[in-house]
């Protein structure tokens, strides 16, 4: 209170000083000036007295009120404004509001330190329940499984960075899916990430399970790009927008330790793996757009691990090349009800092995159409050689129906037929139940 009063006095004096010179120029007589100053001083004393009285009465009123200190809203303003939380200082952060009172300051329990809970990260948990019926001798999944429970913790670290953690609890234990810090303040428009992350190879590799429009991942991912986890490794990523007058163009360069499932295997520090990605995007109209990507990746594979002696045949490497294309259509005014996404990825793999180079190819083509506000249908065609033996080719086809009770849950059924190279074909019906709680995540694009 005292500080407020001092501040008020100081600002009044400052105001008086600012006024004085103007008057001095207007009337040049020093006598008049002195009178003027005396008058000002008197006014100031009167104001100060008035201000002080008002403050003391307010203080006593506050003390009498005892309860939570109500924000002093000027009574002349619209009374409805009082319902709104007051500006930044007392602002309750998004997501935490529901627990306490509606407006104003956060409740603090115990010591004032517990107010630090406002800095808790945004938390969310997404459950992914899978079911399967039918016969599959090559890659059988259980009749029912709580496939994954993914927890996300996201917050701003400091004025220079934000952090994202994604931990998934699966049937086989806990897996740190991603954990990285994003530096937002680097010069030159470099978007830099450090930590463990899904590599920017193509489209599907960057996506978490719950964002996919299928219950599984395409055959080409399973065969050539490291399976469900894909290229997911510890490293550094740098991405930059390439300025040009025509379209969105982004280049990403990533360096990883070199361990990614059964795709890359690092046996010494210099066995790093690399990923490069170039993405172009263009709006065809306000409701349709096209997204193109070129990807490259290389790293050391595990072919040498089967050789008993001290690696006499030199390093075995795998190189991957990818092209991805996405076409999206979503009419703005009816975006709640209809949309279409067509997508395809082609991937070429060149894998060194003791028995020679295996050059394998694979692709998928998919389309998803939103029929109504809650219904989606889709189809996917798969074809892929095996990475370790390019003469073996698996093919598949899927049909998908998805129902969205709300933004926060979805039910999905997928019919999948897979023709395996060396085994009998599999006909399966796969089910998925997904549900998310916690902070409202961003919708994927």
């Amino acid at each position, binding site marked *: 209170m005292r500080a407020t009063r001092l501040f008020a006095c100081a600002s009044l004096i400052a105001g008086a000083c600012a006024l004085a010179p103007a008057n001095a120029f207007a009337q040049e007589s020093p006598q008049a000036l002195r009178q003027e100053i005396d008058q000002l001083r008197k006014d100031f004393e009167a104001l100060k007295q008035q201000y002080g009285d008002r403050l003391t009465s307010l203080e006593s009123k506050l003390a009498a009120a005892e309860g939570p200190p109500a924000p002093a809203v000027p009574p002349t303003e*619209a009374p*409805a*404004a009082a*319902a*709104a*939380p007051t*500006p*930044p200082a007392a602002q*309750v952060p*998004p*997501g935490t*509001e*529901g*627990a306490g*009172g*509606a407006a104003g300051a956060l409740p603090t329990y115990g010591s004032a330190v517990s107010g630090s809970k406002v800095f808790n990260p945004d938390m969310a948990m997404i459950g992914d329940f899978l079911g399967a019926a039918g016969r599959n001798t090559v890659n059988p999944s259980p009749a029912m499984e709580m496939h994954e429970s993914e927890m996300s913790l996201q917050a*701003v670290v400091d*004025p220079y960075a934000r952090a994202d953690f994604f931990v998934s609890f699966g049937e086989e234990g806990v897996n740190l899916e991603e954990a990285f810090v994003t530096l*937002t*303040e680097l010069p030159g*428009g*470099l*978007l830099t990430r450090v930590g463990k992350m899904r590599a920017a190879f193509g489209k599907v590799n960057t996506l978490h399970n719950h964002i996919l429009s299928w219950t599984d991942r395409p055959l080409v991912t399973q065969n050539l790009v490291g399976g469900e986890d894909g290229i997911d490794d510890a490293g550094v990523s*740098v991405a*930059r*927008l*390439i*300025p040009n007058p025509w379209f*969105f163009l*982004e*280049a990403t*360069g990533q360096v990883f330790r070199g361990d990614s499932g059964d795709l890359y295997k690092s046996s010494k520090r210099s066995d790093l793996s*690399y990923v*490069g990605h170039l*993405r172009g*995007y*263009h*709006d065809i109209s*306000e409701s349709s*757009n096209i997204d193109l990507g070129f990807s*490259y990746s*290389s790293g050391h594979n595990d072919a040498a691990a089967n050789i008993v002696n001290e690696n006499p045949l030199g390093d075995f490497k795998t*190189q991957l090349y990818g092209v991805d294309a996405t076409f*999206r259509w*979503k009419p*703005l*005014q*009816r*975006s*709640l*009800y209809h949309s279409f996404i067509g997508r395809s990825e082609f991937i070429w793999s060149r894998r060194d092995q003791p028995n020679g180079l295996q050059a394998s190819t694979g692709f998928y083509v998919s389309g998803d159409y939103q029929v109504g*506000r809650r219904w989606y249908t889709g189809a996917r065609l798969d074809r892929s050689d095996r990475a370790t033996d390019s003469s073996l080719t698996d093919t598949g086809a899927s049909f998908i129906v998805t129902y969205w009770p*709300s*933004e*926060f849950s979805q039910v999905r059924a997928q019919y999948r037929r897979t023709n395996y190279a060396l085994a009998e074909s599999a006909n399966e019906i796969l089910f998925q139940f997904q549900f998310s709680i916690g902070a*409202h*995540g*961003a*919708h994927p*694009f």
Partner: protein
Amino acid sequence: MTRYVAWLLGALLLAPVAARAQGKLNVMTTTEDLASIAREVGGDHITVESISRGYQDPHFVEAKPSFILKLQKADVLVVVGRELEIGWLPPLIQQSRNSKIQPGAEGYVDASMQASILEVPTAQVTRAMGDVHPLGNPHYWMDPENGKRVGKEIADKLSQLRPADKAFFQQKLADFSTRLDAAEKRWLEQMAPYKGTKVVTYHRSFPNFAERFGLDIIGYVEPKPGIPPSPQHTLDLINEMKRQNVKLVLVEPYFDLKTPNAIGRETGAQVLVLPPSVGGIIEITDFFKLFDYDINLLVTAIKQVGAK
């Protein structure tokens, strides 16, 4: 091959940053309403563009990369706030590589800070209530009084960033407020005879509008915010509308008219597509025309159906 790819990427990553001219403030807004108000107070000293269009649902905007390019060059970003944009704005801001418009930074303006916000929950909020906004109803711009407050918020930010133009922005704000006051008086007079008219709206987009202009919203086509109509709820609503003799159903332009039309047929109510935003239809080109259009539409309809 690896080497070539590495070189190519290196060259692309080190390419020169486009030079940016220091001239007019480049203001991006999330909605066309904010863009219109920013244009009023910024005049020709700023350039303004909105990310979303007035005829789309502001809750569900796609985070297109082309918006990243626009945000990258922005000096100021004005958002509606109250978590309206939570589903799409955060990734855009993050990828914009623009430190000026990060939340909390100098160029980030939450337009709701001084506005009068309704429907702020006073008890525990759960998603069983649908897609509720824990920080209150974000459709607060549908009230000219809040329009003035948003104008002040923007004018103050512009003055802070361009102190030399402060007098200009404050003058524009004063002018905007005066014209808005005059218009509001006219709108209130137009609506005065119909105070207390009972209506049903599709989504909870109109509480501020209803409060200012004396409409009585007795129900919603959505059973809960963000949840599509269900047969049982529609039936209950029809019965309630018959009981209270409600003759108007107000629908935002981005919702399907099937259920509202069915309700209209059952109850004899008129279904009005009432744009809640500038740009909701072509004729609504600014904040004034938004209320002009909506109030004319309402008054005409109320006269026709003779509702009370």
